[in-house]
């Protein structure tokens, strides 16, 4: 699995660098308009685009066919893509934290509470979107997968809104915002794990020619 991950890091290298620079610049730029920690909502999602670049690159270069003949199982191939996705999301989150921490040091409007809140929303959106789009990337052809990839982000915001409304039926979300989004994050993690298992099952049966 390590070799496949190294390959993906090489493919995503330039994209990752652009994302990091953009997030840092955007973070400082946003501080004049809104709360800088709001960047944590966008950062994990924005940084995971590199995972889809690697999936389309694998198909275009026929690496997805060649790698099956190497001592790497189909389960490991899928596992690596999900791991790569999480690593990219984590990298996006850490990068977005840089302007937040810097601004906090200079008295900016950044609190631990806002970091936790926006961070959990960002990671939830990212995991929900990935949970939809990653299995679809192995189920559909590259063109359809890209459409699903774009739509998955819209779907994830819809799912988060739906979950929050459901939680609101149990307890008032406005008074327990952090707890509510903590629950959403937990559900997103479970969703992402189930999605991984589904993707492995799909890929085990898929003909690659």
């Amino acid at each position: 699995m390590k070799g496949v991950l190294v390959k993906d890091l090489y493919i995503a290298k330039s994209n990752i660098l652009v994302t990091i620079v953009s997030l840092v610049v955007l973070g400082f730029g946003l501080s004049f308009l809104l709360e800088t920690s709001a960047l944590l909502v966008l950062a994990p999602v924005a940084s995971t685009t590199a995972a889809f670049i690697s999936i389309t690159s694998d198909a275009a270069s026929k690496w997805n066919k060649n790698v099956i003949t190497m001592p790497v199982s189909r389960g490991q191939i899928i596992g690596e893509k999900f791991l790569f996705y999480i690593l990219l999301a984590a990298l996006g989150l850490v990068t977005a934290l840089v302007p937040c921490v810097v601004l906090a040091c200079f008295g900016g409007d950044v609190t631990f509470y806002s970091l936790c809140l926006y961070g959990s929303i960002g990671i939830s959106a990212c995991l929900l979107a990935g949970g939809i789009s990653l299995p679809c990337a192995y189920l559909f052809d590259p063109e359809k997968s890209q459409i699903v990839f774009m739509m998955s982000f819209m779907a994830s915001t819809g799912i988060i809104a739906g979950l929050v409304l459901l939680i609101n039926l149990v307890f008032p979300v406005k008074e327990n915002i952090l707890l509510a989004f903590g629950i959403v994050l937990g559900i997103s993690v479970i969703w992402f794990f189930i999605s991984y298992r589904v993707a492995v099952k799909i890929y085990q049966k898929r003909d690659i020619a």
Partner: protein
Amino acid sequence: MTNAFMVSGLTKSYQDFVLDHVSFTVPSGSIVGLIGENGAGKSTTINAALGLVGKEDGMVSILGREELDGDVKEQIGVVFDGSNYPEILSPRKLNRVMKYIYRTWDEQTYFGLLKQFSLPYDKPIRQFSKGMKMKLAISAAFSHHSRLLILDEATSGLDPVVRDDILDMLLDFVQDEEHSILVSSHITSDLEKIADYIVFIHEGKVVFEKPKDELTERYGIIKCGAAQFDALDQSDIISYRKMDYEWQVLVSDRERAQKKYSKALVVPAAIDEIMLLYVKGEK
């Protein structure tokens, strides 16, 4: 003699094509050429044998093992037509990737082969010509101590000089009796140079599996007129084809045919002529 590769009754159906109970072997220490026209089922056979596509029926044994696990995959090198690796990588970066994939990856062999083929270490693969990409793929396939090499149309579209270099490498590879090669190609002249056995697939079925020498040294084509053709014994005819000015008749023993039909012109049959007569001829 043990078999490095064996398929038995391999079956796979698509909407418009059926790979129909394909069976053949690659004996250890030999080169087997899998021939057939485009769409005959060569790639489907290789893909089904390697687990790229699911088989409906049949058995596959590679290096004596029916299960294609990581240990077996360590010992096989596969080269497909065209691109095999992400084109953003350079050969040096590919080495870093491969050494984490193959336990038996041999950097020294890999860089030695790159040097032998005059391939640049740090140039992205996307800037490589088709021949360079193929040489790189073969270098990678040779760099993890493979015992079985599977090449699917790997020499298609390459110029004769590059093809000759690659064929020489393949011949060197099988000097050791432990190494074997299955090479699918529709360029039969390449296989005439290197193959020990020829397996001919047509419309998803194996038409024949024979030693190459038997095909090139024993098979023949009777070139005759209509009257001579009518006088031929039907049991001698494998297939025939009516051309503009003559009949071409494929026979399995040209010396016997020459003795039996002394007035007829019997010429040796090249593998592509045999293939053509099987595909386009009548029986």
